[in-house]
């Protein structure tokens, strides 16, 4: 009886967790001009509508470009920084660790308005480049965290054995160290991609009317229109995120990103 109650409760929580996505995907198929659930009829016209709206396409291109750059840069910077923290003692190491930890704690909105005022003070006009810079602050702490976790699991004696057998430092890095952090790096890069691609809070402060990322475009569009176009874009973005999640889960495990390990102590 209690078992049944537990299962029922878990199913309800599950439904609660997937409800917004479920409803978004379903109502993107409605034939009505307004968003409704359950959807009425079946049409793909809202998807066609998405591709007809040029401003959405240009925003999509901008978002993908910035997100790809953010993923690549965070992977490289994260690897270098992770190695530095794990392997070396250098002046300011503790401070760097402290800053990386506090980056998780500072509210994104405060960071956004700080960047707005700082960029203005520097005379830096908003461009895809400033967007990338802003997003790196959000993504690098995660890649560093994952790289550090990967390095912690690496047996240093393998590296020493390789070095002792005469392998050059670069070869040791390439054949022993890098494979150990490959999973975390790929997972971290994909997470950096979706973090940048989905970011609204920071982007809102950094963008202009001519330069809007996709989330900003949707946010502004939502204020005036309530047609199912947004649900169609939403469905496409969910698919996008789903691909990224599958990759992350394959290489590092999603729970690790948030500092938890579900299989711990089992």
């Amino acid at each position, binding site marked *: 009886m209690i078992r049944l109650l537990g299962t029922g409760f878990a199913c309800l929580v599950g439904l609660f967790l997937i409800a917004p996505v479920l409803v978004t995907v379903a*109502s993107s198929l409605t034939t009505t001009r307004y968003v409704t659930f359950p959807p009425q009829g079946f049409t793909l016209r809202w998807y066609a509508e998405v591709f007809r709206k040029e401003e959405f396409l240009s925003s999509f291109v901008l978002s993908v470009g910035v997100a790809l750059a953010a993923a690549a840069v965070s992977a490289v910077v994260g690897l270098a920084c992770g190695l530095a923290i794990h392997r070396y003692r250098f002046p300011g190491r503790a401070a760097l660790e402290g800053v990386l930890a506090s980056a998780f704690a*500072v509210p994104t909105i405060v960071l956004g308005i700080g960047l*707005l005022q700082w960029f203005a003070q520097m005379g830096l006009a908003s461009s895809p480049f400033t967007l990338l810079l802003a997003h790196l602050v959000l993504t690098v702490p995660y890649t560093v965290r994952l790289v550090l976790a990967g390095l912690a699991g690496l047996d240093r004696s393998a590296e020493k054995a390789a070095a002792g057998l005469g392998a050059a430092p670069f070869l040791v890095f390439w054949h022993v160290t890098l494979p150990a952090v490959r999973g975390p790096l790929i997972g971290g890069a994909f997470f950096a991609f979706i973090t940048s691609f989905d970011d609204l809070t920071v982007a809102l402060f950094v963008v202009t009317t001519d330069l809007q990322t996709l989330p900003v475009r949707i946010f502004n569009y939502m204020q005036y229109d309530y047609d199912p176009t947004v649900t169609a874009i939403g469905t496409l973005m969910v698919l996008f995120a789903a691909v990224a999640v599958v990759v992350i889960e394959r290489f590092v495990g999603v729970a690790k990103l948030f500092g938890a390990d579900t299989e711990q102590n089992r």
Partner: protein
Amino acid sequence: MAAIGRVSDGTLSRPRWRTGLLLALPAVVIFGLLFAAPLFTLVANSFRTQTGAFTLSNYERFLGDPFYRGVLWNTLKVAAMTTIGCLLVGYPFALYMRGRSPRVRNWLALLLLSPLLISMVIRAYGWLVVLGPNGPVAAVLKWVGITPPQLLYNDTAVLIGMIHVMLAYMVLPLMGSLDRIDPTLVPAARGLGAPGWTCFWRITLPLSAPGMLAGAMIVFSLTASSFVTPAILGGPKVKLMPYFVYTQATTTLDWPYAAAIGFILVVVTTGLLLGYARLLRRNNGDVVFQ
């Protein structure tokens, strides 16, 4: 852990700290220029007038105005309610998760984390549809014969949206705590004749307190400072601090005041959390519930 094994390496004789610094340099530059400097600018600007002179007026304005004090109070209230909501939903869910196989647990964790991996605009938009006048909740209420009340643009809508995102932050630390409980304790107590409820109250609940409290801290601070979900689900009617940071910065264009509101938000939330953490340490964390 990082310090071990380095000295005996001996493969490199040149000063190794230079290599370390070089590797860390990109991150140092990024966080120096794009994290430390903006936050410093923000704090500095909050003590300036629009023309740049030093002033405390931004803070006086906030603290002297009952409207803004109300906004701060409401922010803390919504954060506290979200925390309680996450605990009420999350605790039974964590207990359920604990009894499952590692495979199922992994799936459940993924399910919990899924809201965090979807674009927050889309997630909030989804709730607009779910709770909206043409949504499933309204449809069910109509079918039962109740005229659906306004479900959007109020504290309840924000609460639902926030619990949805924050649940993972409560359940995952809770799982960590529950897993550390010696699995023989409860059967031992049962064997000695303690009823199930007593076991829960005297063993499971107190021993899982650290996870609960860690989760509560994360949920509270993240909720108090979140902007997108409350802005979309609550609209201008639900008055929260991050919303005013945004409108002051982009609509009213009073940057020093926006900076001051942002800084007050950071100070109040971190201050509360530090006080809470100290309180816990004094009580040794786990005796709180006895």
